[in-house]
């Protein structure tokens, strides 16, 4: 009896321990599948939420195009430090810009604008063809690369944002664009070559309302 008592106590303690902290969990297959799906990044769903809840809301934070172009003309380096966004150690940087301009030309893949009332200088070019690259993802400063363990997910966000621009912004712009019409716009410019990219600014538009 003296020998059996400690063994019995040990077994009871062990059973209680396993009951309290089970080594194996059984969960319904449906629930496990749902959990697995939640863990997988969905770029389309992310981009949809980003588009409706963050991107369009952020337009009032974009720098005024006329102000920016004046500052670039005065001191491009200072303008970059003040308004530009750079990702990591990149030489390439971005501007998030808004404004109102008058259409000077309508081409197959772009619309050119001037910001001056009677001017004929092209200040802004709005892209209206296929949209490529990361200008909007990186130019707005709203998405942080550090939040994405896998850069493939991060890059998929760009494709989804670009697709929405092609579907939701460009068709109306292409349909209504006419020489002399006024356009309220907001978008992002990628500057990889300061000799060619600073004037006119080439924007991927996220807002383009022809009045």
């Amino acid at each position, binding site marked *: 009896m003296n020998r059996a008592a400690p063994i019995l106590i040990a077994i009871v303690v062990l059973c209680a321990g396993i009951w309290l902290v089970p080594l194996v969990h059984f969960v319904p297959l449906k629930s496990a599948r749902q959990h697995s799906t939640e863990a997988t990044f969905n770029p389309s769903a992310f981009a949809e939420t980003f588009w409706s809840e963050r991107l369009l809301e952020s337009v009032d934070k974009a720098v005024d195009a006329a102000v920016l172009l004046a500052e670039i003309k005065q001191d491009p380096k200072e303008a970059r430090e003040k308004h530009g966004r750079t990702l990591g150690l990149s030489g*390439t940087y971005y501007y998030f810009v808004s404004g109102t301009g008058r259409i000077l030309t309508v081409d197959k893949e772009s619309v050119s604008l001037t910001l001056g009332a009677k001017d004929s200088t092209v200040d802004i070019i709005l892209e209206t063809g296929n949209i490529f690259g990361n200008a909007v993802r990186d130019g707005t400063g709203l998405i942080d690369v550090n939040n*994405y363990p896998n850069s493939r997910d991060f890059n998929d966000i760009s494709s989804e944002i670009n697709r929405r621009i092609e579907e939701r912004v460009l068709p109306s712009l292409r349909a209504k664009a006419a020489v002399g019409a006024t356009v309220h716009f907001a978008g992002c410019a990628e500057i990889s070559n300061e000799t060619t990219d600073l004037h006119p600014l080439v924007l991927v538009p996220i807002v383009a309302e022809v009045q």
Partner: protein
Amino acid sequence: MKMHYLKLAIAFALVATLTSGCKQNSDESKSPDMPKPDEQAKIAIVVSTLNNPWFVVLADTARDRAKELGYDAEIFDSQNDPAKEEANFENILASGYKAIILNPTDADGSIANVRKAKAAGIPVFCIDREINATDAATSQILSDSYSGAVALGQNFVKQVGEQGQYVELLGLVGDNNTWNRSKGFHSVVDRYPGLKMVAQQSADFDRAKGMEVLESILQAHPDINAVFCGNDAMAMGAYQALVTDGKADKVKIFGFDGSDDVVKLIADGKIAATGMQFPKTMARKAAEFADQYIKGKRDFEQKIPVSVELVTKENVDQYKDYGKASGG
């Protein structure tokens, strides 16, 4: 009664031995953090392969910068083999290194090695290639492959036109750069229905395999107009295959890396374009980060993208020696 005393003595001896052992281990674990003034701290550079000049430049630059900063630096070659990388890490963790600069072999497979180093208190700085985790490496300095490939894709359409047949040579399938480059390229080229990809095959970022794979593809598809290669080593292999087949003047080759031999062939009009990745910038920055960590800094950005610049015949004079000719 004598047995009880004997058991007690043995138990005491056992506890004393274990306690002294713990103390010794504790002292040992502290000692690497406090090198003697004359002792040179060591930094390890683990590179995916040295069988490619681009990675030799990457590793050599990291080693040289670490030496400039006063460290003893050694390069470990993983030979594109995750098992060799694991063995390298075991060796490094047992040898008192203060920091590791890692060019991983596999985005998922290398995570465990980085975690082991982290658990041992040794920071890991990834360069060029990422690992699929943001809580393991101290920082990751990575080429923005996707954006670089988008620019190459746009240039591809400009040079090849909107009609034609092409081949894609992929890199190592376990590396994220392989897919970021492929996806960036296809995000542009797939929008042009007249451009048909007749073959897509991995050549593991390797020059010899690049040549072999393209030779084989050319037998089935002799009329291709272009080849998009996931790195410059494969572009060089593709060029050799096309020279052998007498088609080097008819087929446009696009690479990725900015290696010296490809930059020279772009200047000669033999290769159409590449993406300059700036390996020296990444390697130097990683060595400087390791130095800052050893001196006490802890707040590093997890991911630091480095832009990739398009190199074509029009701007090739701006690039040399794995970077900007102006030294950028």
